[in-house]
């Protein structure tokens, strides 16, 4: 019942077909990931009611039928917040008026207070300004704020960071992470950037050519060799760990993962908090014996669960390594694999270049 059920059959421009039949969690952050043209924005539009799928399609949110055989609830009644890629702030209104626009149309008594939203997103100095004088990053923050003020039950975000430069993007991401902490608001986050997704999402849906090819928890999918994620160049497993002690002398911090200690660059955090670690497969190497004098700090005992050759007779293989109940991926040359005579079940050591670890600052609970 806590689901977003979708049975969509939609034909768009140039015969693009979206056919989705799945149930997504209506809680936490669900990322919709796929290449350009795979239908991600179309999917969001259908959920929001901005596009109307063929009759017979169903959209059900937490048991409420937004679209069924007999009904179609229009977008203005669905209480779906939508943050568009291009912001879409009203140019004839100031920032304050844009926010107010959402406030005056929401269900009374619901949703965050405007002062809260302004404070979360640091919008105070922009309030009297016109959207046309703001930078892209600032506009996106206002757009997020405006969507929140409409007291939505579900927040849709369509590649909100795509038009931003790196710095603005990171900043916005921080704000979004803050929001996922503060609000119990389910989000659907569309992106073609897996690193972005890794920082926010709990659940992942892979979309390709208008169809869902895979779905599952972020950790599961990232650590699996069965999805197209692993075939991407930037394929990376996600580890979940707990912050430990600091090492101020060397500006490092401990991260406890499955009973192992990893050392990562010092971050703003509190001990005891959970953190995700993104470990790109290309930055993981394996050896049979624990090296003694290596510059690499993070060496973990793992068990080899799967080997997969990349492509047909490719030069590289992917390894799926179990670390307790979590998984790591490693990409090595086929030659090395042969040289080491790797076999499923082997006990190995995984070496992770510390420079490859990406820390996110979201507090996620699995």
């Amino acid at each position, binding site marked *: 019942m806590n689901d977003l059920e979708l049975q969509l059959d939609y034909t768009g421009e140039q015969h693009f077909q979206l056919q989705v039949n799945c149930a997504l969690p209506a809680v936490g952050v669900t990322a919709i990931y796929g290449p350009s043209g795979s239908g991600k924005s179309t999917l969001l539009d259908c959920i929001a009611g901005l596009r109307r799928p063929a009759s017979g399609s169903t959209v059900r949110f937490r048991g409420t039928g937004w679209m069924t055989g007999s009904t179609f609830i229009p977008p*203005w009644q669905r209480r779906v917040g939508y943050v568009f890629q291009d912001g*879409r702030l009203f140019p004839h209104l100031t920032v304050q008026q844009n926010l107010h*626009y959402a406030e005056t149309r929401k269900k009374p008594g619901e949703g965050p207070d405007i002062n809260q939203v302004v404070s979360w997103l640091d919008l105070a100095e922009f309030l009297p300004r016109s959207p046309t004088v703001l930078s892209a990053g600032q506009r996106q923050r206002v757009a997020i704020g405006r969507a929140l003020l409409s007291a939505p039950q579900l927040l849709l975000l369509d590649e909100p960071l795509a038009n931003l430069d790196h710095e603005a993007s990171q900043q916005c991401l921080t704000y979004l992470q803050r929001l996922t902490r503060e609000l119990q608001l389910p989000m659907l986050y569309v992106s073609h950037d897996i690193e972005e997704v890794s920082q926010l999402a709990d659940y992942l849906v892979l979309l390709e050519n208008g169809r869902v090819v895979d779905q599952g928890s972020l950790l599961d999918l990232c650590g699996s060799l069965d999805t197209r994620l692993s075939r991407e160049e930037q394929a990376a497993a996600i580890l979940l760990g707990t912050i430990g002690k600091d090492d101020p002398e060397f500006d490092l911090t401990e991260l406890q993962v499955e009973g192992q200690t990893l050392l990562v660059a010092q971050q703003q955090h509190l001990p005891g908090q959970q953190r995700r670690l993104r470990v790109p497969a290309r930055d993981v190497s394996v050896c049979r014996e624990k090296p003694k004098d290596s510059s690499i700090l993070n060496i973990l005992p793992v068990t080899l669960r799967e080997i997969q050759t990349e492509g047909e007779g490719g030069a590289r293989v992917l390894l799926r390594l179990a670390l307790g109940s979590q998984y790591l991926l490693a990409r090595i040359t086929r030659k090395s694999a042969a040289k080491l005579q790797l076999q499923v079940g082997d006990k190995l050591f995984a070496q992770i270049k510390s420079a490859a670890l990406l820390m996110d600052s979201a507090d996620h609970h699995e």
Partner: protein
Amino acid sequence: MSNAELDAIGLTIALASITTILLLIFGTPLAWWLSRQKAKWPALVEALVAMPLILPPTVLGFYLLLLFAPDTAIGRAWHQLTGTQLAFSFSALVIGSVIYSLPFVVQPLQAAFQRVPEDLLKAAATLGAKPLDQFRSVVMPLTRRSFVTAASLGFAHTVGEFGVVLMIGGNIPGETQVLSIALYDYVESLQFAEAHRLAGGLVIFSLFLLILLYRRDRRDNWRVRA
């Protein structure tokens, strides 16, 4: 100025004002509907709206003359509703003017509505705005200037109406003898002093109106961003 001249001016202003108001009320939803449609239907409606631009006013006048006669369905219905005759009445002029000036109001509005990005309206929808709300809170503020343009064009065009009124007005002082007809009368009966007064006044008024219209162009310089 004689009573006849004052009457003519008053009638003309009344006719232009009422016509413009009616056109704004009925033309706005029509222009909105035309601007949003993607089907073939609107092509026919657009053509009908544009017809008064191409057809000589006498054609319109001719058909209206036949339609408004007391023995037709329309004439009879009017008489039943109001107790008066439609043919050669001020109301007949209003109906004729509304048809005649329709494209001058609908077309600028339609063009302006089309320029409002659909995306903004979708955003408004997700914020809880129903279609009428979207129109009022997003479209209208963004197209304010075109309303002024449409109203001015409709007004000015009705003031200049001659052919249609000549055909269906009946030249009744105080009821259908508008400025253009009175002027025509004066010229043809060689009362040039009166003709100069009316014609000169009309030229000054038109100039004034157009200057106002073109001056407004320079303001409103924010651009609508997608």
